[in-house]
Each structure stands twice: as structure tokens, then as C-alpha cells.
């Protein structure tokens, strides 16, 4: 049993599965390709279990709070009630049931955009307080923001030169900067990926 506790075993599993997946891309060999495809399908299935693990974690965290009457335990109790009721309705009635559809569309469908939409008011506040040209780079940032907003606003389409300037900003300086970010991130990600596969990075393994 102590063999299965050794971290080296799991680093080896990561290495072998990673190598299999990479070779699958370069080599056309039925046994290899079929095994890699099957493993990928298994990862999809394991991911469903991982999602349900989120529910279990929620129960553990908020359940502890309710049990110990910790901070904001009343809200945690409400959350657990919502989780249990929605889960039971969904599993036993199905997601196509009128009640589940109603709750999804009118409650959840309103909650999400409301949460994101509240940021609109904070952005307006930030525009006044934070978008100040204190340096040349900040001026570039401000210019890009202003022209992007004008470009994205339909009213900008009827102003002279705004569509052309906005298009140019999206396609040239913004794309140039983003491309540099993409290349930099790719180099970093490849390095990190290789370190993970070779066992130098083991942070993903739980204690």
C-alpha cells in the first residue's frame, strides 16, 4: 500500500498519459490513437464527477458554518436549501420540466446578468476617477478606451473617421500587443507543461 502513497507513481502516470497524448498528435498508429481517444473520453467522464464534487464541497463548507452557527450562517442555510431543492427538482423532474425551466429562465437567468450588470455602474465611476492620463502610457490606455467605446457604439459609426480609427486600433496596436501576450503566454505555458510532464512541477498533486 505504501507504494501507492509514493508521489513518484503519480508523476509517472502524468508523464505516460501526457506523452501518449502528444505522440497521438504526431504518429498515426491505430492502437496508440484509439487508446489516446479512449483516455480523452474518460477524462470527460471523470470531469462530471469533479463537478459533482463541487456540490459535496459546498455542503461541507456551508454545512460546517450552519452547524457551528458561524459567520452569516443564516445565508449558508438558505444556500443549502436552494442547492438541495434545485438539485432534487432537476434530477427527479428533469431539466425539461416546466418548473425547472421556469426557475432556470426567470431566477437564474436574471441573477447572472444582474451580477455582471452591476459592474456597469462601477465602470462609470472608474471612468471618472481612474482613467486619468498621468503618464504617456496612461494616455495611450485612455485613447484606446475612448476610441474603442466610440467604435463599439453604433453612434460612432455615423461620426467621421471613428469606424476607421476604431478598426485600426483593434487590428493594429491592440492586435500587436495581444499577439505579444499570446506568444509570451504560449512560451510560458509550454515551459510549464513540460515541467509538469517531466515531474519538476508537482503542485497539482494533493497532499
Amino acid at each position, binding site marked *: 500500500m505504501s507504494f501507492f502513497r509514493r508521489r513518484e507513481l*503519480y508523476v509517472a*502516470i*502524468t508523464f*505516460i*498519459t*501526457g506523452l501518449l497524448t*502528444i505522440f497521438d*498528435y504526431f504518429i498515426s498508429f491505430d492502437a496508440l490513437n484509439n487508446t489516446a481517444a479512449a483516455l480523452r*473520453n*474518460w*477524462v470527460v467522464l*471523470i470531469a*462530471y*464527477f469533479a463537478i*459533482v*464534487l*463541487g*456540490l*459535496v464541497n459546498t455542503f*461541507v463548507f456551508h454545512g460546517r458554518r450552519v452547524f457551528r452557527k458561524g459567520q452569516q450562517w443564516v*445565508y449558508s442555510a438558505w444556500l443549502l436549501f436552494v442547492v438541495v431543492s*434545485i438539485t432534487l427538482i*432537476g*434530477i427527479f423532474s428533469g*431539466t425539461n420540466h416546466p418548473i425547472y425551466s421556469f426557475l432556470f429562465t*426567470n*431566477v437564474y437567468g*436574471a*441573477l447572472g446578468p*444582474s*451580477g455582471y*450588470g*452591476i*459592474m*456597469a*455602474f462601477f465602470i462609470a465611476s472608474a471612468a471618472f476617477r481612474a482613467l486619468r492620463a498621468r503618464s504617456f*502610457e496612461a494616455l*495611450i490606455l485612455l*485613447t*484606446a478606451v475612448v476610441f474603442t*467605446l466610440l467604435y463599439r457604439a453604433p453612434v460612432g459609426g455615423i461620426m467621421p473617421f471613428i469606424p476607421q480609427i476604431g478598426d*485600426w*486600433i*483593434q487590428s*493594429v*496596436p*491592440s*492586435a*500587436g*500587443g495581444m*499577439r*505579444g501576450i499570446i*506568444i509570451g*503566454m*504560449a512560451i510560458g505555458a*509550454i515551459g510549464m*507543461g513540460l515541467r*509538469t*510532464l517531466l515531474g519538476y512541477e508537482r503542485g497539482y498533486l*494533493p497532499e
Partner: protein
Amino acid sequence: MADMLSTLSPWIGVLVTIGFWSYLYKENPLFRVVEFTFIGFATAHATVMAITELKKNLVAPIVNKSNYILLVPTVLGLLLYTRYSKDLRFLERFPISIMVGIGTGVAVRAMVRAQLLAQIQQTIQPGKPIDGLIIALLTLGSVTYFIFSSEEGLPKSTIPFYNGLRRIGRIAIMAAMGAAFGNLCVTRYTMAISRIMEAVKLFIG
């Protein structure tokens, strides 16, 4: 029942939005209730979808088609839950190491072509010469800014050129971030406007 639900539905949406946006005035119990409802619903819905898909794609093939090889991912998935046992929690490493190995392999194998070669090729072979030259300079500058953090080891004569390139990189990144912020505003405003339109439809028609 259906009539009652259809009458109720816009009111629920508006009340939920008012609850969330009451935070703009100050934090209050209504906001907290709405916030926790959101978290609870999101968790529950994801779980419902995952269990539904497991029933269709895992349980049904095992039971109806005797596809017993699928017992392997079933066991691996269940091993994720050993984290709650002090003695068995090391078994959680099995599924995690497989997921990390395959996920890393899948990402890394295509990254060189998709994100390096294709992007570098477009930078050195652009369609429009002048814009292409500007993009090439900005790309080189932002890569320099990201990757090279110090002047150590560089020949002294190249340091002004290197610093100039880093400055260009900072400008390019500022332009990209400004455009990104501008675009982000659109998303946020769209969400707010969609909720306001629901309220307007309800009160004004």
C-alpha cells in the same frame, strides 16, 4: 398554473435585479440573499447537468450495452471523493494525475503551431506592409517586455535598443489593455441594459 407563472415571471426577474443592485446603495440582507441564491443555483444546476450526463453517457452504456470498460473511469471518478478520508485521500491522486497528464498533453501538443508559429508567421508575412511593420514592432516589443526582465548579460551597446523595445512593448500592451477594457465595458453594459429592458417591458410594456 401556467398563467400564474407567466404573470409572475417578469416580476421575479425584476425583483432579483433590484435585490442585486441594492448593493449600489449599500450592502444589505436582500443583496446577500440574492447573492447566495445565485451561488446555490449555479452549483445545483451544474450538478444536475453532470448527473444527467453521467446517467446518459456512463450508466446507460454499462447497463444497456454491457460496456464494462467504462467501469474504469467510474472508479477513477469515485476516487476523487476519497479526499474526505484521512487514510485514503492519497488515492485522489490517480484521477488527478491522469487528468493533468492528458490535459497538459492536449494543450501543449498544438500550442507551438497555433500560438507560436502561426502568430510569428503572420507577424513576418503580413498582408498590409505598413500596418504589418507596426504590428511586428509592437509584437516584438511586447514579447521583449514580457520575457526579458533584466539587462544582465546584455552587451552594453545594445541596452538602449533593448530599453527602447521594452518601452514600445509597454505602449503596445497599454493599447491592448485599453481596447480590452473598452470591450469589457460593452459586456457589462449589455447585461445592465438587458435587465433594464425587462423592467421597462414590465412597467411600460
